[in-house]
């Protein structure tokens, strides 16, 4: 009993040893996944593979190269034809007006870590800046 307490305690100590930056990153990933499962995976599927020719994949998508555009489309949605990995999709995606900038930052961090080969946080400040410059507002 004492031993297990000890183990737990040292685990906590070890975890808190990680830099605060790392902890923040972990936090972003955990919350980002929650947002993804709530707002996105219905269409893009939990594994990011998309659904047939209706909903494009995020996993392996060349569209992710343009992060600004992705941040804007999470907020505003999009419609009309788009090309993902050379394939044409054309189905409206609804926007997410209800998400806070922090939510979008967490979500973007999660998506880019999982499918965009990135290991860094998308900061709230840069989400704010990007959203201010989106082409389609409201």
């Amino acid at each position, binding site marked *: 009993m004492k031993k297990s307490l000890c183990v737990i305690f040292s685990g906590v100590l070890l975890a808190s040893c990680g830099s605060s930056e790392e902890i923040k990153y972990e936090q972003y990933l955990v919350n980002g996944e929650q947002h993804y499962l709530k707002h996105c995976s*219905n*269409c893009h*599927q939990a594994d990011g593979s998309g*659904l*047939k*020719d*209706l*909903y494009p994949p995020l996993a392996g998508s060349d569209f992710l190269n343009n992060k600004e555009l992705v941040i804007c489309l999470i907020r505003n949605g999009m419609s009309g034809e788009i090309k993902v990995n050379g394939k044409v999709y*054309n*189905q*409206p995606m*609804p926007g997410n007006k*209800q998400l806070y900038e922090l939510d979008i930052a967490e979500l973007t961090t999660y998506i880019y870590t999982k499918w965009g080969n990135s290991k860094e946080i998308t900061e709230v400040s840069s989400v704010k800046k990007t959203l201010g410059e989106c082409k389609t507002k409201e």
Partner: protein
Amino acid sequence: MIKNIQFIFVFLIALAAFSCSDSQRKLPYLGNKQVGENGDTVFHTIRDFKFVNQDNDTITNEAYKDKIYISDFFFTSCPTICPVMKTQMLRVYEKFKDNPQVGILSHTIDPRHDSVQVLKAYRDRLGIKGNMWQFVTGEQDDIYEIAQKFYMVSAMEDSAAKEEGGFVHSGAFILTDKQRHVRGMYDGTKEEEVTKLIKDIQLLLSEQP
């Protein structure tokens, strides 16, 4: 020790009884039952219907004559549960698409937006071929009426339901037998419920060969 053996014994009997009942399990008849003129039970039956499909062809109950069919209610621009329902219905489609005794009937509840062309594009993009799975539209009131009174699910317009895209509707899949009696309702957003539906379709096929 003796207690233990007794327990195992009881457990085995329960198991046998259980597995027995499963192989002979019969699907229930859902909805109101009435007693007919000659004293027979008259089960709840889906009324005759007439809709227009993705190819602008008229689809009536005749198209589902001698078929077990699964129905649902959705709309193409639905942001929330419909994509999940379609993901799950695709499992049913893949499993039974070559079986002429099984059909799928998806009704739009947003006929103003979901025209024949919109339904066709949506269906094509889902990769559906042949006439096993029909996507139909029609008069909005007619669709809502058959949904609520006959398939026993909710479907209505509600501008307060912004997050759901302006409609309130159920994610149910309704299983109907060859006489258009409702034999099962499943939550089309849950993988395990749809697994059960697939099993029940097989059961119904053996009941109504």
